[in-house]
């Protein structure tokens, strides 16, 4: 678009969001064009409709949506922008589908600096481009100062499920193998290290990443995977309990096999947290029939995002639906749902 529709360019360095940016008028149009479309740039988005229309191959579609309210907005290894892109691509991927397109809704707080907004949008654009999944439509609203935490982003994604793939949380069966694609707890610890009042120094980065190409490799090799899920809020423990409940099975884990970055272990010791309950943003849990486990493990380890993949346990026939764990120490314990929020303890 070469025509100069707006006489004065958006002053991103100095200006902030104000109520006119959400009113649907010229200010909003300029914000969209000179900030959102400029960076997220793709054919569908440039059509500037209220929606994006596209053809899909016949078959089974998947849609997923996620709201992102994270604080702080910027953290080691990512920001709310990249997180929102990766998160939804991953949610779609957990059905075995390849994400095709994303939408993004922004709720901006009056007073939010344009320079911060641009950083976030650039980050989204990078994540989107690197994943090959464009953001094709969006929405912007502005709320009064005090009514939003700077920025909230909601992303939705659509994808197509390949033939013969029936991945769902209720498909786990006794005897199945449980795999994890890499180390746990990195994202949560990275977030906590950026929170003011906890103040510890570490080189841990969030693991925020789009795992759809990893999933594609896995599903190509073993279309009959039973379950896939990304262990986000509430950590690995919560995800496994969800799957156990949905499938009405039990699980036994081997603590020795669960990969944890030593720095994450140390940070959790310091704060009195259990890595099993700390959030991840670039990992997946896979449950498959035992005869496929070695194949899948090899496929995962061959992928850059699955280098530390491991077999961590197996599914059992348990009417109580409990997730148990053989501890590193030689004892055994239950790994239960997370109760409330994990708070650092003194005792």
């Amino acid at each position, binding site marked *: 678009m070469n025509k100069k529709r707006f006489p004065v360019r958006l002053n991103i360095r100095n200006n902030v969001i104000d109520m006119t940016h959400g009113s649907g008028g010229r200010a909003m149009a300029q914000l969209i064009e000179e900030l959102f479309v400029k960076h997220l740039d793709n054919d569908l988005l440039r059509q500037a409709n209220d929606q994006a229309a596209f053809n899909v191959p016949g078959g089974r579609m998947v849609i997923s949506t996620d709201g992102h309210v994270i604080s702080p907005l910027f953290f080691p290894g990512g920001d709310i922008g990249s997180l929102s892109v990766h998160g939804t691509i991953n949610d779609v991927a957990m059905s075995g589908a390849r994400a095709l397109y994303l939408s993004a809704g922004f709720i901006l707080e009056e007073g939010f600096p344009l320079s911060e907004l641009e950083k976030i949008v650039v980050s989204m654009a990078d994540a989107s481009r690197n994943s090959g999944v464009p953001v094709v439509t969006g929405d912007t609203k502005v709320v009064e100062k005090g009514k939003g935490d700077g920025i909230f982003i909601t992303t939705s994604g659509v994808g197509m499920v390949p033939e013969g793939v029936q991945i769902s949380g209720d498909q786990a069966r006794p005897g199945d193998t449980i795999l994890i694609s890499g180390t746990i707890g990195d994202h949560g610890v990275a977030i906590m290290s950026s929170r003011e*009042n*906890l103040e510890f120094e570490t080189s841990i980065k969030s693991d925020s990443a789009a795992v759809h190409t990893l999933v594609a490799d896995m599903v190509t090799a073993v279309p009959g995977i039973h379950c896939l899920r990304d262990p986000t809020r509430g950590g690995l423990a919560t995800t496994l309990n969800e799957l156990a409940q949905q499938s009405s099975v039990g699980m036994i884990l081997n603590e020795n096999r669960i990969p944890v970055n*030593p720095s994450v*272990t*140390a940070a959790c*010791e310091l*704060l009195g947290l259990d890595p099993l309950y700390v959030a991840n943003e670039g990992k997946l849990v896979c449950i498959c029939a035992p005869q496929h486990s070695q194949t899948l493990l090899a496929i995962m380890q061959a992928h850059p995002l699955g280098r530390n993949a491991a077999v961590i346990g197996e599914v059992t026939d348990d009417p*109580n639906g*409990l997730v*148990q764990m*053989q*501890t*590193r*120490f*030689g*004892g*055994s*314990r*239950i790994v*239960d*749902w997370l*109760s*409330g929020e994990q*708070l*650092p*303890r*003194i*005792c």
Partner: protein
Amino acid sequence: MKYIDEFRRRDLAQQISSAIKKTADPEKHYHLMEFCGGHTHAIFRYGVQKLIPDNVSYIHGPGCPVCVLPVGRIDNALQLVNEYDVTLCTYGDLMRVPASGLNSLLRAKARGADIRMVYSAMDALNIARENPAKEVIFFAIGFETTTPPTALIIKQAQAEQIKNFTVFCNHVLTPPAMHSILGEPENSGQDRIIIDGFLGPSHVSTIIGSRPYEVFAEQFYKPIVIAGFEPLDVMQASLMLILQINEGRHEVENEYTRAVSRNGNQKAQALVAEVLELRSEFEWRGLGMVPESALKIRFEYAEFDAEKRFNIPPVQASDVKGCECPQILRGVKKPTDCQLFGTVCTPENPMGACMVSSEGACAAYWTYGRLSQ
């Protein structure tokens, strides 16, 4: 991690486990009370029970400062934020503890009260320093381990002449609580518990030393072994207790020699004595009134005492009907003996402190031990 990993070694666990199996007399049953909530947590988290024979049982004691804090004191804290324009600073452990009317600090915060979770006592003082226009109150809890930091910040507040800072002091003492458990029940209605020996607290002992326990061992003829925090420490200390019981000894032994000495940390003790003093009595959840078992702020530091600056009337609050926390805290009943356990009272919806604090017997049992061997 040095001094952590070595004390969690599986091979050594097997070693000590065999030793315990050989040493425990199959004709006897050993009831060992771990006083300290941290030990309860360790036993469950590492699954220690699986490695010791059935005739050795752990009885979970009241060493969880959150669990023994009377509901009335949390009600007081809630009164403070409701009636005055204050910022209340608290350790994370207290946020979800149920007060009267199923209120809690977390719920009050959700309704707009300025309640802030702090990791360290220092943070509370920093908040006061950075917000001179606001009254800041630090909700101080804990046994002797957590008390010296409170004493330090009060001294610091005085040195810097900070005018907007007070402490709501609820620090409690370990030896009087042990005495209360070992002593005769006051009311005939209370059950006696059989305790054959104590696993002594790790970090309380770091501060107070091993000496204060000697009187109990002598007076009550019970062996006490001060145990470190790691699962191997717990097992070794259990072995040492079993040996003492077999040999009819009742001594104070120290398994945690790498951090505990007979005299303890005298610098920290002196500091506490300078700023705080004994209350004549204090109500403990589960133990009732225990004489000389808690601390208050000395007169010289009265300007930092929330109980002097604000009106904090004593609140007589009672536990939820059917809640067995008092009996569980004293080791008389197990979590599964409580009617509310797992039905009405769960970690999501805790009725009593034993379920809220991850140290509490009920929470630890729920999270780690429901599949009892």
